[in-house]
């Protein structure tokens, strides 16, 4: 957004030239289908949700205006801060680890070794598998009595435990699954970004005698920053919204329930299980506000490290 702001100020200040006006028309044509679609199917529901957050809303969307009541209750709700804490922990750990792994794998797969297409397909597998099946398999792996993880640890003489029922470990176990599921797809995007880097840069570097590490840090990473930025922003957003695998892996009777509940799970329970859609709407707005803040911060910070040509 950084460079756009400047040019925008310029266009507002002086009279637009004909060429500029032509560009505007072109731009509006380019964005029109998307914007119209989003307005109808997303922005309008979003506005409705905003309105709901000031109301008591039953299961059938009958509203009773209650003003700031939902928000007042929300900031008093200690569950909100607990779920926020868990969510932040999840984001702070899964995003950097996931990103580093994706970059590593993408880089290795961008070399001229044999079998890259097989590797890519395998790494891609988890991201296309239904989450129901994923949750089930990982529950088996983590099982305290007969899980594979405990068997492997036992082989090395480490004593296993009930990973998903232990409040100290459960969230980390769930993070592993989250990373496992997303690395493959992020790798694809990064790989796509790497393909876009012109060979001539590498050829020039090779002539200069730069080794693979040097090339990686002085060409690949800087040239890849717009893509890394994208993967990072979207990973943070989806990290803040993590929901379904945790929902399926941690039952309500688990001792680790409190330490694994995320913001969206809290939202989901109020919206669907409890039928308190007004309160749920307020939670959704809270989630929105948090993500928006973090994203704006990211967009401001990008000037320092993202390399837009």
């Amino acid at each position, binding site marked *: *957004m950084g460079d*756009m702001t400047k*040019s*925008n100020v310029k*266009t507002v200040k002086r009279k637009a030239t004909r060429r500029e006006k032509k*560009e*505007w028309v*072109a*731009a509006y044509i*380019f964005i029109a*289908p998307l*914007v119209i*679609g*989003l307005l109808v*199917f*997303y*922005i309008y529901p*979003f506005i409705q*949700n905003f309105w709901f957050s000031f109301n008591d809303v039953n299961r059938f*969307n009958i509203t009773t205006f209650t003003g700031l009541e939902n928000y007042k209750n929300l900031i008093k709700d200690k569950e909100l801060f607990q779920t926020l804490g868990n969510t932040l922990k999840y984001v702070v750990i899964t995003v950097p680890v996931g990103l580093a792994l994706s970059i590593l794998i993408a880089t*290795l*797969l961008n*070399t001229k070794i044999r079998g890259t*297409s097989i590797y890519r*397909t*395998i*790494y*891609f*597998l*988890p991201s*296309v*598998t*239904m989450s129901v*099946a994923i949750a*089930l*398999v990982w529950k*088996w792996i983590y099982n305290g*009595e007969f899980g594979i993880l405990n068997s492997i640890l036992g082989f090395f003489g480490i004593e296993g435990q009930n990973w998903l029922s232990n409040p100290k470990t459960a969230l980390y176990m769930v993070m592993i699954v989250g990373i*496992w599921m997303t690395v493959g797809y992020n790798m*694809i*995007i990064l790989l*796509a*970004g790497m*393909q*876009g880097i*012109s*060979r001539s840069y590498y050829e020039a570097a090779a002539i200069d005698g730069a080794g693979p590490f040097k090339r990686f840090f002085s060409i690949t990473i800087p040239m890849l920053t*717009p*893509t890394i930025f994208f993967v990072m*922003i*979207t990973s943070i957003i989806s990290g803040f*919204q993590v*929901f379904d695998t945790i929902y399926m892996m941690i039952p309500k009777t688990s001792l680790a329930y409190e330490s694994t509940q995320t913001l*969206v799970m809290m939202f989901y329970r109020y*919206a669907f299980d409890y039928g308190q859609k007004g309160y749920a709407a307020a939670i*959704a707005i809270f989630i*929105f506000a948090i993500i*928006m803040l973090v994203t704006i911060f990211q967009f401001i910070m990008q000037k320092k490290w993202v390399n*837009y*040509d």
Partner: protein
Amino acid sequence: MHKRQSFQHIMIHIILLIGTGITILPFLWMVFTSFKTVGEAMSIPPTIFPKTFNFDSYKNILESLPFGRVYLNTIISTLVTVIGQITFCTMAGYAFARLNFPGKNIIFILVLSVLMVPGQIFLVPQYMIILKMGLLDSIPALFLPNLFSAFGTFMMRQFFTSIPKELEEAAMLDGCNRFQTFGRIMVPLVKSGIVALVIFTAKFAWNDFMWPMIVNTSPKMMTLGPSLSTLQGQYITDYPAQMAGAVMAVIPMVLLFFIFQKQFVEGVAHTGVKG
């Protein structure tokens, strides 16, 4: 020199193989479980390999669903979603990356904000919109809201921003108008990004679960994910059936990916020469 390179390759293979193991083992377990009987799937401690390969779960799914129709619906819905998203996201992504126009920042923030709320809030309002359009329980209902993607737009914007500006300026000087520049010069340059978006969109549309379930009712208007879930009873935990369903759902995606990633490699060569 040659020796050093092959040593490097071996190291790369070792790292990749470790990752492969972690990635594929849970997946193999899924496949193996789909061939077990219910009793064996529930046995404690669990067996890894099925005692005998039992195809009942697959047979059962094929028999109890209008399978051809369901597959066809899923393919149509996925295809239209992909074409729609690619078209709209590429166009908008280009405008956000390269053109200047009043309100650009506000509109872009508006687009991004769609990503920042729990997706479930859209469910009921979208249902009401489709209802008002008179499209409940129809094929277009499956894909209509999914044609527009904030994620895809953001992604394409990022890919466009990493292309050198000179290429575009040269085209404009050659007398191309905006639309020609976009179609002839810019789109081919972000081909690998488009392929990545195709894969993402296809994966999303293929696995979309809640939306088809809510908006469509008759079994012949369903897509794969929801259809498979209707085979589950309220209390029955038929693991082999669940796993068989997951396997059947993932196969076409894997095939699609395998084919598309060749495109991917070609895309490299292409942009490589031009860039």
